[in-house]
């Protein structure tokens, strides 16, 4: 009963995020088709990968003439932030190893950030409820995007959707967080920006997550 309520709570707050997910995946479908990926492959990728930045990165590399290894490597780096996120989530999941790994698949950035409770644990049913509509919209949006290969996502400003979406999550996070979280956000952002020209795409975000290690000090 309580589980079902948490699931519903996650569903209730998901519509704006699902709508943003629709815009993003529309953009992915259009970009992938323009890069020469078949419509079926683009939709299949959204259905089985369900990680936007990794999809954009790997298709971008294939389109630029890169090999499978480079494309998969870029996707892995883009997704590397899910490593610390998964470590953080793990202790809140019940069941055996494989069941926990399966539950971990429901993580996307917004569901992870919103399911995080003030005591550092995660509300897993809220996370599932929040992720489900986003997944449906992710696949649906890709399907719409592949139909419109003449649309230029840049001309529509769709590349601003992703960062604006994350900024919304950041602002929500800072509103509930301590003063330390402002400092950590600034440090993480500055670190990532400084690393952009130096290391491969995706690595700046992973390294920036290290800013959270100041939490190891006694005072929060």
């Amino acid at each position, binding site marked *: 009963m309580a589980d079902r309520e948490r699931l519903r709570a996650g569903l209730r707050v998901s519509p*704006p*995020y699902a709508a943003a997910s629709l*815009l993003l995946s529309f953009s992915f479908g259009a970009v992938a088709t323009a890069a020469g990926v078949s419509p079926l*492959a683009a939709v299949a*990728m959204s259905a*089985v*990968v*369900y990680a936007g930045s990794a999809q954009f990165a790997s298709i971008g590399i*294939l*389109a630029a003439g890169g090999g499978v290894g480079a494309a*998969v490597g870029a996707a892995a780096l883009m*997704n590397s*932030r*899910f490593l*610390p*996120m*998964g470590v953080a*989530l*793990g*202790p809140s999941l*019940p069941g055996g*190893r494989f069941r*926990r790994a399966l539950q*971990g*698949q429901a*993580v996307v950035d917004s569901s*992870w950030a919103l399911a*995080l409770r003030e005591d*550092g*644990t995660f509300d897993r049913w809220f996370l599932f409820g929040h992720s489900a509509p986003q997944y449906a919209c992710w696949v649906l949006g890709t399907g719409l995007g592949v139909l419109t290969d003449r649309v230029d996502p840049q*001309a*529509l*400003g769709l*590349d*601003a*959707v*992703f960062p*604006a979406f*994350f*900024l919304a999550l*950041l*602002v929500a*996070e800072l509103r509930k967080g301590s003063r330390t*979280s*402002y400092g*950590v*956000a600034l440090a*993480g*952002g500055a670190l990532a*920006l400084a690393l*952009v020209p130096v*290391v491969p*795409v995706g690595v700046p*975000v992973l390294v*920036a*997550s290290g800013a*959270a290690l100041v*939490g*190891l000090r006694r005072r*929060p």
Partner: protein
Amino acid sequence: MSVWPTIALVALVTFAIKGVGPALLGDRPLPPAFTRVVLLLAPALLAALVITNAAADGTRVQIGADTAGVVIAGVLLLRGVGVLPVVVVAAVATALLRLAGLP
């Protein structure tokens, strides 16, 4: 282009990356230091994602129409505007600024 093998491998890699943390650590109480790090992980990651998507193009720092669009989004968010309108305004502002000649 070897699209299908790439899709299969990216799916496997993503599954592994999302699954490894939960597989290794599960259903246990958190030590206080771990909790503090987890709570700070979200602002660090989100700030880095915003910056790398708004102010960079691949491995190049680039301030452009999308950067301005995201700054406008930030102002609206601080004024309490909801996620969806903010995202839409950011996209429209970016599109207009690009039409006006910004990169």
